[in-house]
């Protein structure tokens, strides 16, 4: 048995953006798929709750979840070519949520699709909606996926590394677009990324994941100004800053394999500040400052002392 995600807790309010940050295999995507009940075969939620608008999603049947997914919760995945069906027109794919969830038909449906495409800044939507995905650029395809996500009028959008495959100027356009949409609709956003620059630009709060657990959670400024967990500090120091030639702060090693996690704190073999205790006992999440919490013995000890 592999514990892909272990005791992950966070909450987010309307219009808020939470950044879920971590390296590959840290459990970011599994966390998101658990929320919408799309875990792969063989994976199970063995404990915990997902409360969305007051209802526990983990207790719902797939049939009930289907009425929530695509309507009140939407997901944007990394690779738009994999989330779009190459055999259907853009119109058909963008229309699907409105067709099933809102029973729109005919002229109203067409108007709705054009409105959505305009909202994601697709030029001349009345023409482009007859195209197929292969006729569009990568940036446009990702905006189409965004239009599908918005089609049901969601209250929560989970965006899993949506800009990883895009060029930098196109990425900047897409992030600006998401921000505009959020301002206009008040939708809550969970932004999964490994890029702290995106977090700095987009998020209100951040949860840093390592080896399936949230090791630190804080408001975005708090996290950048006073990172409490050594892993957060390592991530922040590892990113080159424009105009600085200082050597990067690199920690040794790589993220552990989830099937054979180290004992105690999963980060201790790479941690430059590890204590003897870290190798044997896993730290609990402790309050570390205004709205912030961390799982680290250094923080626990500091709290105990003060």
């Amino acid at each position: 048995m592999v514990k892909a995600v272990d005791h992950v807790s966070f909450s987010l309010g309307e219009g808020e953006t939470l950044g879920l940050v971590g390296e590959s295999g840290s459990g970011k995507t599994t966390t998101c798929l658990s929320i919408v009940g799309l875990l792969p075969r063989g994976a199970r939620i063995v404990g915990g709750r997902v409360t969305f608008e007051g209802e526990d999603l983990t207790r719902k049947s797939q049939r009930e979840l289907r009425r929530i997914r695509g309507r009140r919760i939407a997901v944007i995945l990394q690779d738009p070519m994999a989330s779009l069906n190459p055999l259907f027109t853009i119109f058909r794919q963008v229309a699907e949520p409105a067709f099933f969830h809102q029973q729109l038909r005919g002229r109203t449906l067409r108007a709705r699709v054009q409105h959505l495409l305009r909202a994601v800044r697709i030029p001349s939507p009345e023409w482009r909606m007859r195209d197929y995905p292969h006729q569009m650029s990568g940036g446009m395809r990702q905006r189409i996926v965004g239009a599908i996500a918005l089609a049901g009028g969601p209250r929560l959008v989970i965006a899993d590394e949506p800009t990883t495959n895009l060029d930098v100027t196109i990425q900047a356009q897409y992030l600006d677009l998401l921000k505009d949409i959020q301002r206009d609709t008040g939708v809550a956003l969970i932004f999964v990324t490994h890029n702290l620059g995106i977090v700095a630009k987009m998020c209100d709060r951040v949860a840093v994941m390592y080896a399936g657990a949230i090791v630190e959670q804080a408001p975005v400024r708090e996290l950048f100004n006073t990172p409490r967990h050594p892993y957060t500090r390592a991530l922040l120091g590892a990113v080159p800053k424009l105009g600085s030639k200082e050597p990067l702060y690199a920690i040794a090693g790589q993220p552990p394999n989830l099937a054979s996690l180290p004992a105690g704190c999963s980060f201790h073999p790479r941690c430059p500040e590890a204590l003897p205790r870290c190798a044997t006992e896993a730290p609990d999440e402790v309050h570390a400052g205004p709205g912030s919490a961390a799982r680290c013995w250094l923080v626990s000890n500091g709290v105990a002392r003060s």
Partner: protein
Amino acid sequence: MASPVLEVRGLTKHFVVGSRLLGAGGALVKAVDGVDFAINQGETLGLIGESGCGKTTTSKLILLQETPTAGTIAFDGRDIATLAGGELMTYRRAVQVVFQDPFSSLSPRMRVRDIIAEPLEIHTRLRPAAVRERVDAVLQLVGLAPDVASLFPHEFSGGQRQRIAIARALVTETRLIVLDEPVSALDVSVRAQIINQLEHLQRTLGVSYLFIGHDLATVAHISHRIAVMYLGKIVETAESDALCARPMHPYTRALFAAALPSHPDDPPAERAIAGEVPSALSLPSGCRFHPRCPLAMPVCSEVAPPLRLRDGGGEVACHLY
């Protein structure tokens, strides 16, 4: 100043696409169109631009995987198109490459020792014991223990594989390594290790790098000089510090505007420029950037601006200056 290791003059590569039999009716893609740059001993030149701007074609021309349509590449002052036989082998030995994806650039069926030793077997007549010694030495140089040599690539993480790829690139008497997005596929904490390692190797061995990337902060960090490419042309080139202090070409400025902040309190960047990189099949007239340029003037759609000296050193190709 020392003479450059590699000097590229008027480098041009055009591809014919969609042509029918006997080459009729094809369209011309000007992937690289009159590019000049030079790389000195122990120096890193960063080549930055978005997909389709000709970065990778440029590297393929240098690596002799493509032949240029026009222009020259000179290595130690000699045109590589004129090299043959032993001299050509010397060039191939001296110029190596590290690719983006260490999962597809290392043969899964070869042991690390054989992967790294292969260039030596092609290029030298070292005895097996000497090959072994050399392999162990480069493994140590890139921060891996010699006893990993008997393992297969799948037993390593992405960062370690990239170290193996770097070791392979260093094993001959390498003078220049083309680094084609070498850290883009790696995790953040591992990226920093590899960048630091590359910088350390350059300091100790004096090897030169052509660092190709699209992430401005990474390229600016590792490079001494930067060349910004857009649709097959270099639009601006300058010392890394000078470029960061004052990017002049509107495209360079757009790249800076699109760069992500390193702190939430960083002043908000200008709004990202609109539009996408046009197809290289139908290049805009005049300055290739003019359809996306927020500062375009009438002259920009008519006359392509040449590279001129810019303030603070370097060159810029824009009618504004």
